[in-house]
């Protein structure tokens, strides 16, 4: 029984990890006051870049970096459009997703059907041999460890560092931040790039570890779940992290429920993350203070520096 439970939890971790990356990245982007709806597209680009790199070079490190860079590259297009040319964020983000789906399918044409062993697991000496806790926490690949570190880093960055404070300030009121003398555009540029890089990592995890192969549109809506997750977590990093595990858990539960023949249609199960987000949105909307305290007030608003 314990073995089954451990196995189940391990699959939840693998389901949650890409969500952690993509959602934390998007959260940083949104904290700076920019809504990037292109997460799904950036994940796919990261996935195909990662898989193509491992296929041609065999280097996991290079592949991970390629995923990260591809996500950031696509995000830089978005940044140029919305910051440089003042394009509408919502429309540009949607276009980015559609573009990402298309370009990843095009690039990945020849990669379909090739398999890869998956990222090597790194067992931490001593700790990994502890029963139950060992296999749960200390026998993962580098990207899972990285996702643990990332949530600590992001939370610490936002709460305790000056750049984190400035980032929140820019998202809170870009006019005020500009008046005090902070470079709003540059800060947003960096936040968007970070968001893209993390989405790229999420993609790399999907094609290198979660199911090590490439298929068209393999992100299967995870980008949208990540977007929902940020709102669900009311822009707080630890809530994003636990939310990712909750949503990851639901995904896994849905798979197992199908396998055990539970009489709930699969479609209903796949609705659950979105339903949960809607419910949470309704609940937090009732308390304006909660939103005021953590939500970036300037989200989605274009910034005209001369005004």
């Amino acid at each position, binding site marked *: 029984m314990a073995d089954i439970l451990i196995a189940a939890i391990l699959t939840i971790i693998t389901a949650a990890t890409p969500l952690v990356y993509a959602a934390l990245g998007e959260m940083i982007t949104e904290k700076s006051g920019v809504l990037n709806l292109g997460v799904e597209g950036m994940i796919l680009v990261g996935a195909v870049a990662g898989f193509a790199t491992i296929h041609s070079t065999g280097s996991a490190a290079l592949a991970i970096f390629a995923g990260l860079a591809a996500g950031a590259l696509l995000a830089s297009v978005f940044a140029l459009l919305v910051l440089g040319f003042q394009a509408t964020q919502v429309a540009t983000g949607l276009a980015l997703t559609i573009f990402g789906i298309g370009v990843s399918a095009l690039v990945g044409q020849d990669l379909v059907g090739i398999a890869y062993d998956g990222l090597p697991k790194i067992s931490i000496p001593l700790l990994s041999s502890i029963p139950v806790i060992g296999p749960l926490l200390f026998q993962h690949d580098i990207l899972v460890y990285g996702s643990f570190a990332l949530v600590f880093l992001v939370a610490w960055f936002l709460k305790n560092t000056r750049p984190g404070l400035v980032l929140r300030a820019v998202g*809170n009121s870009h006019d005020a931040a500009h008046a005090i*003398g902070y470079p709003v555009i540059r800060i947003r540029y960096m936040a968007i790039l970070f968001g893209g890089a993390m989405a790229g990592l999420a993609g790399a995890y999907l094609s290198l570890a979660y199911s090590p192969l490439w298929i068209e549109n393999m992100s299967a809506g995870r980008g949208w779940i990540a977007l929902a997750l940020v709102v669900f977590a009311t822009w707080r990093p630890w809530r994003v992290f636990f939310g990712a595990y909750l949503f990851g858990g639901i995904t896994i539960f849905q798979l197992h429920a199908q396998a055990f023949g539970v009489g709930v249609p699969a479609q209903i199960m796949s609705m659950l993350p979105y339903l949960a987000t809607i419910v949470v949105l309704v609940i937090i909307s009732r308390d304006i203070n909660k939103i005021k305290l953590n939500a970036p007030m300037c989200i989605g608003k274009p910034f005209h520096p001369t005004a």
Partner: protein
Amino acid sequence: MESAFGALSKTMPHDQTRMMPPLLQLQGMTKSFPGVLANEAVDLEVMEGEIHALLGENGAGKSTLVKMIYGILKPDAGVMSWKNAPVNIQNPAVARALGIVMVFQHFSLFDSMSVLENIALGVERGTDKSELENRIVEISNRYGLPLDPGRHVYTLSVGERQRIEIIRCLLQNPKLLVMDEPTSVLTPQEVTKLFETLNRLSEEGVAILYISHKLNEIKALCRKATILRNGKVVASVEVESETPQSLAAKMMGEALQAPSARHHRKAGEVRLEIDGLHNTATDQFSISLKDIRLKVQSGEIVGIAGVAGNGQDELLRAINGEEMCQPADAIQINHQPCANQGPNQRRGLGMASIPEERLGYGAVPAMNLLQNTLLTAFQRLGLVKAGFVDNRRCKSFCLGILESFNVTSSGVLAEAGSLSGGNLQKFIVGREINQTPSVLVVSQPTWGVDAGAAQTIHHALHKLAENGTAILVISQDLDELMGLCDRIAAICSGTLTRAAPVSEITIEQIGMMMAGIENPGTEKSQDVCQPG
């Protein structure tokens, strides 16, 4: 005019000028925006430790000038010197490095952050949090600016928010403090306190560039004044040798019209009666209205004074029908109970209302003037017949507004958003007044409009009252209320005071009413409100 100014500064014997160069010197500052020359060859000198007034009407170019000094706007031409050395202030960081700090008219604060975080954002990096907290407490004690570093900005009053800005500036050991209309949001008592702080800073050698159009304040606070009109310097004077009247004449450039006489008006029957109006706040950012009682008679203008955010918005919404309340007879228009009815029903009873916010509230920016006319006038004027718009009558009514209120626009098809603030306000006021309502509720009728437009609007309100309309004016501008109203009440945290006749009340007493001190005029409270 400019040559006169040049001669003035040469002949003025000024010991300090000879001994040390001016702290800040501007020569020929020019800045144009599409269609407007906001500043034209402006010269200005500020000495160390001097409180220097920058005087001018709305739109005279004061804010543009200081934004260039602070590096937010780039001048098209002109030279800035700091302690006799030419400087190029490209951005606010450069200005701050020189020692120039600025308190904005609209605060640059972050609502959802704490006082400490807000201040930390404005000071140099590398300052330790607890050390910063100590310095905040020290400065707030030294200058009498009490402030709790841990509170979130959205929970603070406007006066407290301004303190954050001031402390943020003082932490940087400034040489020049620029204040853009700092008192427009303060009670008279808070103004007195602010002036004490500013005088103290001046004694310590900090120069202050004080922007205002309030003459009494400038008389009370400043030593020198530079007066701007239409983007040009029209005079640079020693304040001591001027009277408020002479300053006003220079600022306005034309003889001031005496306030319209009120004696033509005769108060008639009660048109608007508010009797025990309660309204519970829906969230912590709004104010609960508590037992509001007020009667406005026909031919009478009643004013409601108050510091922003004390329930004015909520009161306006309750009266014009945006918020409905119970019981129905808490609000009566022409003796018809209507507190539970919406805006259109109330308009049907004879009410019109003008909100504070012009764009997106008083008018739809992306719609043309014709459409905006239709939006509030369709009912009273019968501009819609069997579901169809009577375009001809709508157009003639709209043209009538543009003509009688002298609205400068490209015609009835001009988008509301394309009009300047003053013109749009004239249009909105005209649209409501020309419907000859029997009750008119208006909030901040002349907020942010130039003196000419303000005069037109005031004149129209007087005339409307003479013709028997009951008018309720909500405003933060006490001078405006004193000039317009027959009676004035004050609102403070959702409670409305008795409306006192203007002939029996002073500005100081209104100030105390605004601060929530009841029974103005009693001997005991006299010492609270000595003007600075």
